[in-house]
């Protein structure tokens, strides 16, 4: 008897709570996403209507904002998109190359300093960027690299994004060692094993690294703000910031339009690579 009341009770309470949960969730989704939808819609409204209309159905639609925004900074926005793309792709290549080499050595090769190196690498994850940036700036300035992309790209080729080393080390450790041993018996050396055995199996970790490296460098604001002062070298975030600084001339509409353009690559990753993004956060805590 006790059991039957229990099950009936949980059943009806179950459906009720399921509906309640959907309502709570839907309200939250709306609250979270509304600002984004509003920005999207507003980017197609004439600037003077944006703040007076808070709904999602504009009375007037125009593409003017996109046209104006594209040329608002003297150089076409295409240039900034291209610059950002160049740095994004370069950073991805750098991280894939340097972090996978490092991770393989730390996860698989036996040598005395291995544990120490791994511990050092993990410690650098916690290091606030600001402690390093002043001497880095001085160094790169001495080398004449201000207003070049070297300060933004070179560190990526030197395995300085320790999170990805950590991600890859974890991944390699989960691969059965028997694979290496079989290859070793066939006469493969460490380089061969890395290239032909480990690297192909690491594909999911490499994809996660690619996605997050790209998104982070695409969003990166501090680096370009420091190292790039000439407009034609600007990446998208600093270009957007200078649109804000000329706000009175450009108007809200153009800022919204260009902001949305800047988010397109991230949204594409979000739509097509979500599985990897979710897994990446759940396994390493990267954002």
């Amino acid at each position, binding site marked *: 008897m006790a059991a039957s009341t229990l099950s009936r009770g949980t059943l009806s309470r179950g459906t009720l709570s399921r509906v309640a949960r959907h309502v709570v969730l839907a309200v*939250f989704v709306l609250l979270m996403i509304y600002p984004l939808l509003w920005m999207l819609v507003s980017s197609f409204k004439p600037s003077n209507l944006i703040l007076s209309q808070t709904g999602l159905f504009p009375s007037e639609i125009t593409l003017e904002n996109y046209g104006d925004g594209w040329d608002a900074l003297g150089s076409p926005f295409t240039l900034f998109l291209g610059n950002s793309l160049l740095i994004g792709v370069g950073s991805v290549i750098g991280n894939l190359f340097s972090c996978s080499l490092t991770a393989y050595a730390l996860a698989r090769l036996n040598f005395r300093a291995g544990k120490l190196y791994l511990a050092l690498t993990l410690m650098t994850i916690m*290091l*606030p960027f*600001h402690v390093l940036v002043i001497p880095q700036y001085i160094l790169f300035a001495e080398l004449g690299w201000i207003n070049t992309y070297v300060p933004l790209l070179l560190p990526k080729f030197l395995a300085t994004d320790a999170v990805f080393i950590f991600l890859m080390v974890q991944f390699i450790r989960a691969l059965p060692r028997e694979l290496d041993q079989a290859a070793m018996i066939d006469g493969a050396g460490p380089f061969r094993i890395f290239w032909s055995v480990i690297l192909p199996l690491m594909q999911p970790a490499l994809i996660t690294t690619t996605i997050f490296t790209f998104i982070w460098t695409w969003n990166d604001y501090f680096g370009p703000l420091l190292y790039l002062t000439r407009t034609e070298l600007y990446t998208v975030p600093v270009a957007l910031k200078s649109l804000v600084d000329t706000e009175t001339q450009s108007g809200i509409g153009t800022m919204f339009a260009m902001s949305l353009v800047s988010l397109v690559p991230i949204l594409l990753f979000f739509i097509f690579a979500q599985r990897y993004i979710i897994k990446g956060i759940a396994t390493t805590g990267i954002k």
Partner: protein
Amino acid sequence: MTLTSKDTGRRVRGAPGAAGSKPPGGRAKPSGGTRGQGLVAHIFLLPWMIGMIGVTAGPLIASAVLAFTDYDLLSPPQFIGLDNFVRMAGDERFWAAVRVTLVYVLVSVPLQLGFALFLAVVLDKGLRGLSLYRSAFYLPSLLGGSVAIAILWRQIFGENGLVNHVLGWFGIELGSWLQDPSLALSTLVVLNVWTFGSPMVIFLAGLRQIPEELYEASMIDGAGRVRRFVSITIPLLTPIIFLNLILQMISAFQAFTQAHVVSGGSGGPLDSTLFYTLYIYQRGFVNFDMGYASAMAWVLLLVIAAATAANFIVSRRWVYYGDE
């Protein structure tokens, strides 16, 4: 907390010896030739070593030295002992930056984790549409660090922005949030809370690790929902709560982009959004007061390290790591 992907994790568990890689058998196993892997390893590690020395450790030491100097990039650094730290103690803007950053960390991180945990629990357990909701909640985390969203925020909290429009329905009339020293920081707190999706995803992964049998057993014992949440979910989730706390705290201490864009680089009005990192930037790269900025950066490093260590010590009292 598993740190490997689910499918490989399962495969490894089946293969004895590979899982921990700790047991002595696993280490000694590869026969001859492995002693000499030091050389090979260092070839693999060449980029890492250059980076470690040139981009990480070198600058770290250099900034520790610069902290005791007066340096403006033009003339050579002058050793001035502890003067930078003494100046800091009497610098009102420094204390404003400390206050702003502490309020930001102490308010936005608990709120963010609270929302993350709440929604993770609501989402857990086979609710239809889970992945759709999860995506919607996660999207802001991907976008939150961008200049584009900071621009959006300036408009939402502006004088005629969305927020004031909604408040108007309730008869609340406010000016621009960004120009009001008592409100400006809260817009950035809201922005950080808005990105609760990434800790939520980590919570969801953690919730999935809690064995279903525990809930079933407690239901048979007559435990209600609240009781189950308090006695099973929370204790078993404490390691994940701790992980999220550390991660979000460290990143909140270092927030920069949003404050720089929202306040137009000034940290205003009246230094009410002068984040610590923003003040470092102003001293170092606007005033070229690089010794002082280095000293400030080191204080930040030490504060973050102390806060993390304190968390680890306190965690022994509340984080539950299975039966001991």
